[in-house]
């Protein structure tokens, strides 16, 4: 397999983009990536999107976007793994370059969530869970993570304040990110006083509904070396599944799919958790970040809450997590998230993160997760 580098990144401001359609959002973003890469065409397109079908009634977006990018007849496909669709697209793009099938591959993620009502959006998001044995009984996504939160709090003594600190940290970082949906800080009090959604989770524990896209361009490492810019390669990846229903998990407080995916990624990259300098994780809810950093091996099992409280994962901490603002402050256009995580890490490794820069970052990790942990994709990036 050839080694694969990221040579272009593109991202526009995320939010409620009333004036822009899905194809507009994606093409705008893709053009930024193409310009950043300095290429004028691509060989293949892989798009991650959780459900363009449910959100805008449009399937077949691989072709739609290849068309609107002016790149037909290149092969194009949409891949899906609920909220891990973006991460999955990245893995598929990597494989296409690594295998030698294509040289320049565009990997994008996009979601247009505001063309439907809040209820319909919630329904669409709910399709990531077990329809017959979870959703049928009235559970929601915040509800599933609330079940995890309560179990984690009972088992490990994780506190309500520790959950709030995740949101506060991510907003602090997000306030330094001009592309974030909510680029402003919040306080623990505002989190604790926000409206209850599913006890103990409140509105400010939850990532928002967002429109947006993120695009990266991949190519073989040898080709990238010819460009005169800092090169970041994908050193390893891992993907894993777990039971779709939360009730079928062996340990409700543990994200096994993230653990499995991370182990594969570390192995492939020949690295260990303590080698990682900067991390982007899937904080769809505050409790998720706490569970993820445990499953990634960055902190001991059960100690995720304490780690956040002690500032271990803040921008100035030992292992900065979600310097972009995370899903909470940056936004969560579902399919785009996995790719945007990669963009933040690439920017960090290229030393282009501005006020969010983690000094001397050489190794970064992204973790993208589907549903309540039914799937997970982890990538490790290395500055060459």
């Amino acid at each position, binding site marked *: 397999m050839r080694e694969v580098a990221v040579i272009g990144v593109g991202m526009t401001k995320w939010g409620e983009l009333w004036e822009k359609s899905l194809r507009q959002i994606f093409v705008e973003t893709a053009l930024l990536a193409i310009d950043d890469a300095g290429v004028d065409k691509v060989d293949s397109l892989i798009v991650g999107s959780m459900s363009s079908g449910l959100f805008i009634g449009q399937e077949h977006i691989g072709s739609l976007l290849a068309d609107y990018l002016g790149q037909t007849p290149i092969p194009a496909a949409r891949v899906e793994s609920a909220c891990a669709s973006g991460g999955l697209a990245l893995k598929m793009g990597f494989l296409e370059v690594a295998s030698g099938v294509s040289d320049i591959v565009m990997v994008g993620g996009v979601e247009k969530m505001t063309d439907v009502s809040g*209820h319909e959006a*919630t*329904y669409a998001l*709910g399709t990531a869970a*077990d329809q*017959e*044995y*979870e*959703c*049928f*009984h*009235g*559970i*929601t996504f*915040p*509800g599933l993570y*609330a*079940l*995890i*939160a*309560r*179990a984690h709090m*009972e088992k490990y003594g994780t506190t309500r304040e520790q959950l709030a600190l995740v949101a506060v940290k991510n907003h602090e970082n997000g306030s330094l990110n001009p592309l974030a949906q909510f680029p402003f800080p919040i306080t623990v009090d505002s989190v604790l006083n926000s*409206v*209850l*959604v*599913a*006890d*103990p*989770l409140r509105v400010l524990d939850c990532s928002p509904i967002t429109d947006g896209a993120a695009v990266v361009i991949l190519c073989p490492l040898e080709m990238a070396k010819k460009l005169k810019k800092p090169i970041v390669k994908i050193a390893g990846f891992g993907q894993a599944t777990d039971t779709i*229903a*939360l*009730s*079928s998990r062996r340990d*409700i407080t543990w994200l096994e799919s993230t653990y499995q995916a991370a182990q594969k990624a570390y192995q492939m990259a020949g690295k260990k958790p303590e080698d990682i300098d900067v991390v982007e994780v899937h904080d769809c809810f505050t409790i998720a970040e706490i569970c993820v950093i445990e499953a990634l091996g960055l902190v001991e099992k059960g100690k995720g809450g304490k780690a956040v409280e002690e500032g271990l994962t803040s921008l100035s901490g030992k292992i900065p997590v979600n310097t972009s603002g995370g899903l909470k402050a940056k936004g969560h256009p579902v399919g785009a998230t996995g790719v945007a995580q990669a963009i933040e890490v690439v920017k960090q490794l290229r030393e282009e993160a501005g006020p969010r820069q983690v000094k001397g970052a050489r190794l970064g990790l992204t973790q993208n997760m589907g549903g309540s942990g039914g799937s997970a994709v982890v990538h490790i990036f290395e500055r060459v």
Partner: protein
Amino acid sequence: MPTPARFWREIPQRYRLEAGKCKRCGFIAFPPRLICPACQNREFETIRLADAGKILTFTIIRVPPHPFIDQAPYAVGIVELDDGVRLTGQIVDCDFEALKIGQRVKIEFRKIYQDGESGVIYYGYKFVPE
């Protein structure tokens, strides 16, 4: 939102909690499956789940999905039945403040929701404190 057929085919599970017990390793699949996730065996016997258990975790849904809009707030939990099988379901006829992890509950037959004023009524299992 199920169609009549989609709901109807799950009736043995929703009404009678029929599950499949792996003939080789004893793993209980609910809903029933074609292949055992524990040992890959393909033969099962039909059994009924236990009708009581304990709460493993719970939450109170305050922002419900559309079909449940009039029911909020309601409690949902993961219950471990006395035969080891874990189910997700609503916990009803309870005082939210009194709910505890480890609390004993039993199964009751209830309406889950209905398809508006003119559609089908979907029945199934819920949990009540013992």
